[in-house]
């Protein structure tokens, strides 16, 4: 119950209880006080008034008991506004707490102080915020960012001072602060875009590591920012935009013009940075983050890249009902503009009988938007089920949707109309009524050949009670009265009888019908019309009286009627344009997606407009950051030794002793800054020299392996190419790889994406050796990696050192022609093994990339290292010696033939073409019963050999493709099922030895379960 409805006796009870609470609060025992406070908080939580206890509570604000203190804080924040004078008593306590050595106490003091909405303390709050903004603890700084908003809402005059604090906090590098300060920025000064420039790149880079809620706020702010700072990426690919199909038909001249424009568009690297750094967040578990990234892509990405958000949005449809509701709304808006995005996922929008009503209608909306010539029959079949739904509101919605499909897709108009006419005999009235309304609209679009439908509807008139449907029928009769000259007067006669009891909307249409009939068929209907007009004249509703008066003057000639009477026919029987059946989401795109305004379809207070792209991009250099502030990151994660890296926070964020192959080359993309950057590179290399002199001997060893330093001041295109080459060779260094994997895995925010040219990133993350692979044969990832490991060295023979090897089936990083082998070494002895390395090998020509010497392997410890071996496309064993400080053990690795391949992807067509060129060997085998379906076959083949699956059009034929590691010869495998359990295996390859060997292995694998 709300407090004011409490009765007197209740009030008495309450106050007496409060007395007892007061006593408890004034006692000496903390436990009693705590008990009292708990009861008070429970009262507050229930919404009861406990303000009269304020004096008693506020005394305890300085209590030593933390729990008690916290509860007092909660109380204070709730009632301080009402008891301002008393609240001031507590301020000194907070001021003292602001200096406490414990950061939690400092933060909570600021939190409470800033939550006390008492105008007198504004100066104290301001001071506290300023101090907290430069606190050592990021947690306190975060709290100060929150306090900014509170102070601003208490006293907007402090804006200028607060902006200073925001500016300061925006420069903060802690991920903890970023989200909160951007929130404050959005509330206090969302128009001060200039504060963002210098922090833009930092925010983009920190984004992944900011907590989820901060991510949402930052992404939405950056969306607005990008729309003011970059030029539109959309012009360039108008061809991808389905809605501007005209682009296809434009004359060639225009096209070339377009192409010129296309070439002139270069996406700002900062624009790209934002898109790239937000994309991983599509995988977030937080639905708000996913949708905010989706809206960012929708508003900022080139049209052909927007597709990446589809999957994630569809995934959210599995989430809670409320999430579905919002996501579906956004999809509804998107699907109007870009059908193609969601069409492949059409089935995800099928309605279930258990869906909530608003979810159902949204899904219907989307299905209707997605309908096109190709899928309309499927959609209509689906709609047929919905029409039968027990939820009649939904059934009615479906009928409207059918109507929309019918008008949008002319091929199915007739089919839809027939279907709707069938529905007219439905038992449910809502369904019939809705059908009538929709049929009316459809007939209007093509009235010519449907007089029988109109007749049918006239017959229905007696049985339909829904006003809207009755009105629709009357309107149809009037509009097409010349097509049904016999029936229309009869309908008028019937409705005249019941005129007084009809709804207003029906009455209006009756008057209209009467007037139209009077004009076309006055002989039969004159009396009826007059009767109706007389009834209408005294109707209770003024609209109807008004209409009646108007019609009478218009159609019944008398001396008073003016010139208009002559045009009565032209006025009433004018051809009317057909209604356009449109989606209600058509104009929602004026709001930024994902916002509250978009959901409620009105501008919510505080909504910030998304500006249009500027025609000319503002100065890009404003985002350059001059100050070089090195950030040290210690990487212990996967490196065999700690690696210190200095990431420079500037436009050119990376410079390390590993990377000092002159940073200026790549940056020369921005030619303006080339001179400046050469300075920077000088600085950075001097810094790296310093740090390399500090590095220990172990690191020096690595340093010697590095490519020589290079200093180019005026870089050329060729030089740039060399740099890329160098980075690629660099990627062969094991420590570089481990650096990258660890960096990539944890510190995504700091990955120096800018310095790694795109092709390099590509090469590092997907294809280790893109420069040497034939571009035609795309190496894909392994379909399956067997975990089977083979003994290399038994612990008994290895004197405590045991080694096992395994084929990870990853393309080799060292050289493309090598097969990568993983060796796990374990020390089973009770003393450390030192200097484990690889010694002599045979055959002597064996090309092998050894692992770096393991200095020490402690007892019980194990380590995994990787090797690259060029087996030269033969199964001949690679023999080598595994050495420790004291011993040498001869070991050998004998690969199965299947491990010498790398899987490749190709289309079925390419597969056939290649097949024709190669010689083959084949065999017919009897398959094990378990292996007769596609999955087990793929699995068995993938187990035997590292081949990629080629999509196949036929169910009984399975294709696999790969190439040999050393020479890159293509190997194609076809498994064709013939009858119950026999299969024909064909292998096409030019390698006359490997073919039969592979065939033998496959036969064995497929024949046994």
């Amino acid at each position, binding site marked *: 119950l*709300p407090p004011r409805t409490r009765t007197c006796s209740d009030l008495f009870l309450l106050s007496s209880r409060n007395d007892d609470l007061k006593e408890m609060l004034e006692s000496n025992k903390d*436990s009693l006080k705590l008990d009292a406070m*708990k009861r008070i*908080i429970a009262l*507050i*939580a*229930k*919404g009861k008034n406990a303000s009269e206890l304020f004096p008693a509570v506020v005394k305890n604000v300085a209590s030593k*008991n933390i*729990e008690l203190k916290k509860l007092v804080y*909660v109380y204070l924040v*709730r009632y301080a*506004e009402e008891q301002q004078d008393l609240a001031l008593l507590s301020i000194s306590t907070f001021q003292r707490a602001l200096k406490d050595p*414990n950061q*939690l106490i400092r933060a909570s003091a600021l939190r409470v102080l800033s939550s006390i*909405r008492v105008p007198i303390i504004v100066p104290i709050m301001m001071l506290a915020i300023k101090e907290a903004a430069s606190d050592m603890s990021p947690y306190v700084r975060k709290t100060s960012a*929150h306090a900014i908003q*509170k102070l601003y*809402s208490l006293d907007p005059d402090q804006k200028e001072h607060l902006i200073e604090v925001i500016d300061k906090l925006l420069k903060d590098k802690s991920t903890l602060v970023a989200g909160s300060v951007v*929130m404050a920025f959005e509330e206090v000064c969302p128009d001060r875009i200039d504060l963002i420039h210098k922090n833009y790149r930092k925010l983009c880079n920190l984004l992944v590591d900011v907590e989820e*809620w901060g991510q949402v706020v930052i992404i*939405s702010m950056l969306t607005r920012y990008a729309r003011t700072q970059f030029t539109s990426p959309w012009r360039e690919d108008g061809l991808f935009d389905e809605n501007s199909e005209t682009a296809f038909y434009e004359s060639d001249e225009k096209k070339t013009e377009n192409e010129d424009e296309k070439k002139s568009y270069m996406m700002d690297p900062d624009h790209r940075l934002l898109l790239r750094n937000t994309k991983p967040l599509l*995988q*977030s*578990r937080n*639905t708000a983050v*996913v*949708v*905010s990234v989706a809206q960012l892509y929708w508003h900022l990405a080139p049209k052909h890249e927007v597709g990446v958000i589809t999957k*994630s949005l*569809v*995934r959210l449809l*599995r989430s*809670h*009902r*409320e*999430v579905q509701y919002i996501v579906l709304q956004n999809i509804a808006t998107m699907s109007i503009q870009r059908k193609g995005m969601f069409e492949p996922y059409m*089935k995800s929008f*099928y309605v*279930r*009988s*258990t869906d*909530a*009503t608003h979810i159902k209608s949204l899904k219907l909306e989307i299905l209707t938007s997605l309908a096109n010539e190709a899928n309309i029959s499927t959609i209509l079949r689906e709609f047929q089920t919905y029409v039968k739904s*027990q939820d009649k509101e939904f059934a009615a919605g479906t009928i409207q949707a059918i109507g929309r499909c019918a008008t949008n897709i002319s091929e199915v108009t007739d089919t839809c109309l027939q279907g709707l006419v069938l529905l007219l005999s439905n*038992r449910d009235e809502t369904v019939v009524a809705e059908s009538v309304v929709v049929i009316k609209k459809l007939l209007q679009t093509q009235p010519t050949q449907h007089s029988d439908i109109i007749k049918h509807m006239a017959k229905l008139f007696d049985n339909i009670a829904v006003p809207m449907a009755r009105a629709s029928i009357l309107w149809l009769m009037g509009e097409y009265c010349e097509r049904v000259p016999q029936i229309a007067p009869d309908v008028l006669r019937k409705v005249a009888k019941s005129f007084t009891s009809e709804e207003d909307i029906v009455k209006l249409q009756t008057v209209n019908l009467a007037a139209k009939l009077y004009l076309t068929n006055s002989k039969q209907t004159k009396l009826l019309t007059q009767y109706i007009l007389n009834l209408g004249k005294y109707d209770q509703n003024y609209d109807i009286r008004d209409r009646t008066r108007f019609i009478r003057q218009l159609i019944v000639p008398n001396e008073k009627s003016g010139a208009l009477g002559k045009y009565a026919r032209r006025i009433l029987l004018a051809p009317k344009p057909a209604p356009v059946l449109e989606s209600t989401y058509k104009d929602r795109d004026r709001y930024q997606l994902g*916002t*509250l305004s978009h*959901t*409620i379809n009105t501008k*919510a*207070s*505080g909504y910030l407009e998304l500006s249009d792209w500027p025609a000319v991009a503002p100065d890009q250099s404003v985002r350059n950051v001059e100050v070089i502030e090195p950030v040290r990151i210690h990487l212990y*994660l996967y490196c065999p030794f700690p690696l210190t890296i200095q990431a420079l926070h500037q436009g050119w964020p990376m410079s390390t002793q590993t990377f000092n192959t002159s940073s200026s080359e790549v940056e020369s993309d921005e030619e303006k800054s080339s001179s400046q950057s050469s300075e920077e590179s000088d600085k950075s290399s001097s810094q790296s020299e310093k740090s390399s002199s500090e590095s220990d001997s172990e690191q020096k060893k690595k340093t010697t392996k590095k490519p020589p330093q290079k200093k180019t001041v005026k870089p050329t295109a060729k030089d740039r190419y060399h740099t890329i080459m160098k980075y690629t060779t660099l990627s062969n260094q094991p420590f570089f790889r481990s650096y990258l994997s660890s960096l*990539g895995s944890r510190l995504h925010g700091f990955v120096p994406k800018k310095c790694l040219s795109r092709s390099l990133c590509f090469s590092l*993350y*997907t294809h280790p050796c893109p420069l040497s692979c034939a571009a035609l044969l795309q190496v894909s*990832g392994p379909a*399956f990696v067997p975990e089977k490991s083979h003994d290399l060295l038994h612990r008994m023979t290895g004197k405590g050192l045991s080694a096992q090897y395994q084929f990870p089936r990853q393309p080799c990083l060292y050289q493309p022609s090598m097969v990568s082998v993983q060796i796990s070494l374990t020390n089973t002895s009770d003393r450390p093994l030192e200097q484990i390395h690889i010694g002599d090998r045979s055959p002597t020509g064996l090309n092998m990339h050894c692992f770096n010497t393991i200095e020490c392997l402690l007892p019980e410890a194990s380590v995994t290292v990787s090797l690259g071996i060029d087996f030269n496309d033969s199964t001949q064993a690679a023999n080598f010696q595994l050495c420790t400080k004291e011993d040498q053990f001869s070991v050998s690795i004998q690969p199965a033939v299947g491990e010498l391949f790398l899987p490749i992807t190709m289309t079925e067509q390419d597969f056939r073409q290649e097949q024709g060129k190669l010689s083959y060997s084949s065999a017919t085998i009897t398959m094990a019963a378990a292996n007769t379906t596609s*999955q087990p076959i793929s699995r068995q083949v993938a187990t035997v050999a590292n081949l990629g699956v080629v999509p196949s059009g036929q169910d009984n034929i399975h294709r696999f493709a790969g190439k040999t590691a050393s020479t890159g010869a293509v190997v194609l495998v076809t498994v064709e099922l013939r009858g119950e359990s026999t299969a024909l295996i064909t292998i096409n390859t030019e390698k006359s030895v490997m073919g039969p060997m592979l065939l033998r292995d496959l036969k064995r694998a497929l024949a046994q379960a």
Partner: protein
Amino acid sequence: MIHSLFLINPSGDIFLEKHWKSVVSRSVCDYFLEAKEKALEPEDVPPVIHTPRHYLISIYRDKLFFLSVIQTEVPPLFVIEFLHRVAEMIQDYFGECSETVVKDNMVMVYELLEEMLDNGFPLATESNVLKEMIRPPTILRSVVNTLTGTSNIGDTLPTGQLSTIPWRRAGVKYTNNEAYFDVVEEIDAILDQSGTTVFAEIQGVVGACVKLSGMPDLTLSFMNPRLLDDVSFHPCVRYKRWESERVLSFIPPDGNFTLMTYHVNAQNLVAIPVYVKQSISFFESGSGGRLDVTVGPKQTMGKTVEGVMVTVHLPKTILSVNLTATQGSYTYDNGTKLLVWDIGKLNPQKLPNLRGSLSLQAGAPKPEENPSLNIDLKIQQLAISGLKVNRLDMFGEKYKPFKGVKYITKAGKFQVRT
């Protein structure tokens, strides 16, 4: 952002309110209560309501409404997601989320809400962080607290708040170190009358219960990661490792959490573990009808299908049912017209069948549409998509953890149209 929160029970009583800015009168809820009156089912209440001065965003969960009051533009999902976190937090702390539990722990819930938002902006929503600030109740602790006068409130800043690993608390210690992973797959499907699949897909969740000391760094790899079409991760998962190597590499939160959810493409054929033969028909005369449903195993990969349950929302005009089940038992609630047939284990030799007559209310017309059947089922030790965990490796700590993986397949939104 979020101004106030009200918890409302299904009969419309407000039993908890919390304001993060100045107090908003609880009369704003009237707009919501009005909308609730209008809706037939609690689920049908629109999640976003626009009132003259405020915007009300609500969720319905565990038979409770969580209603938040908003005054300015904010992404609605931001609020919705947060409200669900509140519900999850209550569930996490007290074992269930219900009106009684909230009323019994009013003060603690209030304190938690205080910690979760500051001035309407989320401050600490990670369970690990919250639990360090406000310790969850246990019987032992409440006894100790009353005896010694210590409190449930932590007095130092949770380490998670400061590190780049906000989801894990520091100084975790267990005597038995164990990590369990549950791969739970749900089949969402719509089958039509003839048993043909109209739509089917698999939604999977990898849940984890990790009780490991220190700062373990785990790597979980799958035998066939390429099956996964779309994934979403707990923030602890390193996205780049997944991108490049298709392994899950993460420093886990302590305790229970959802590691990832995934989606297996509808393009791959989804195995449907059961088939349903049904015929529901009503007589033209309108006096009644017949129902005959048989359930049998289809593609079960050699496992037993358990926990089979068929739920039917019968038309409103049904008066009574008279059915016999050859296996299991059925219940029929005449108020909600809900027929539930609990079958249990499927025996392929003897297929369970439910048949009998339905009678309609006198004078009621023959129902237009046959009701659809919702199927529940469970298959232990099987992930229907074929996904398999390959191995779990731990780095960063010396001890050997005990590891386990469990697979389970369930029916999600599994509907048979009739």
